[in-house]
């Protein structure tokens, strides 16, 4: 089942000589259980693609469907509800609220969506424990390491009934060990049925994805073939 579908999506900023095409005729589908990575240099349109997929910005033309719902046909309130219920976001700089504990940060989107506080809190505590942060639930963001903060952000993104995870350079500021931990968590969430769209310029991050699409000047110019099994590398060059 497709969780995210973008059809001929374009986005222009400015007019006349100052017109900039951030995205041009982008077609992209992300199915449940799949991680798709978007690679491209700065200014290629990666972040615009993510904000449009997350309904934080509207396309100039084209269609975007999230969980089967065409975003442009929804009212502003309905779009906000869809964002809260179905979409989780992970940003490079974590975007945790500093005055709330880890558990409160994770529970917040559920509470905003009307889930009773106690239930939201239990779901948050379970989510944090599942990511190895059970003993950090009552810590404030400034008491956590960078890797722990990003794990809290992932817990917030996958908690509740979220079906789509959108991540913008999710391990940009982390060292390689924490980067790998973050990608393992996102990959694990996909194995449990979540759809994820990760934009990055980092090939090591992108290599966790089932499919990598390449963006240049706002267009998808190429994508990887479905990867063969790992055996293909391990037997390569085997002597008879």
């Amino acid at each position, binding site marked *: 089942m497709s969780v995210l579908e973008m059809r001929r999506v374009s986005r222009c900023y400015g007019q006349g000589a100052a017109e900039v095409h951030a995205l041009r005729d982008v077609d992209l589908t992300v199915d449940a259980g799949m991680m798709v990575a978007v690679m491209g*240099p700065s200014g290629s349109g990666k972040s615009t693609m993510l904000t449009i997929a997350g309904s934080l910005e509207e396309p100039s033309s084209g269609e975007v469907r999230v969980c089967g719902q065409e975003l442009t046909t929804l009212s502003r309130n309905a779009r906000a509800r869809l964002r809260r219920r179905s979409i989780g976001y992970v940003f490079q700089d974590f975007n945790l609220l500093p005055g709330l504990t880890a558990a409160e940060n994770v529970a917040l989107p559920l509470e905003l969506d009307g889930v009773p506080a106690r239930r939201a809190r239990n779901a948050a505590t379970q989510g944090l424990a599942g990511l190895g942060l059970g003993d950090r639930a009552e810590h404030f963001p400034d008491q956590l390491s960078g890797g722990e903060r990003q794990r809290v952000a992932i817990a917030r993104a996958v908690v509740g009934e979220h079906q789509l995870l959108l991540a913008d350079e999710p391990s940009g500021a982390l060292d390689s060990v924490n980067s790998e931990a973050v990608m393992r968590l996102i990959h694990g969430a996909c194995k449990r049925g979540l759809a994820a769209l990760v934009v990055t310029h980092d090939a*090591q991050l*992108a*290599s966790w994805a089932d499919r990598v699409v390449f963006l240049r000047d706002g267009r998808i110019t190429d*994508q990887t073939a479905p990867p063969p099994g790992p055996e293909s590398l391990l037997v390569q*060059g085997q002597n008879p």
Partner: protein
Amino acid sequence: MSVRHALLALLSEGPKYGLQLREEFEARTGEVWPLNVGQVYTTLQRLERDGLVESDGDAQDGPQKGFRITAAGTEELTGWLRTPSDMSSPPRDELVMKVLVALRVPGTDVPDVIQVHRRYLVELMQQWTRIKETEADSDMSLALVVDAELFRLDSVIRWLDAAEGRIRRAALADAGPDTASGPQTGTQYIHGIKGTQRGTPGALPSVRRRVGVRK
């Protein structure tokens, strides 16, 4: 990679048979570098000739012949571990050559050539990452080999990214200041680069003269 020193390392743990050395070599390198049994025996013969290992002298050649490291072998192994590998001059890298050649072939879509290689490298990295995800957790040797391969491939992709950025900037600069400051159409640099069609190749020979390209 030095099979010779890898065998010395295995023998530094204690005496072993030839077949056992082959099996342990493959296991310790995450089974990424398969080794022919003939290669093991040839290497062992040379190590014995050089006085770095000793064998059960009277035993027949074959799987039951045992080998052990000598004092000279231990000294050789210790020295090798602490000797930096020669990375002082750039290797003659085929991919670097292809990009340099692409710049000089008129009408070549250089970014397209770069993308073909970038996609291939990312696909390889996806396969290595799958190995890391599924198998490397319980196997430290395999995890280290996979990491090494991922960092190596990643560095090649970074070079391709930097090369494409440099080529694109050069093309925009050649097209004039108006184009360079205006909106990028993404097409000016696609078919050949002005600067590369002037018939004055020279960057590579001068690089070779300065630092020496490893053959």
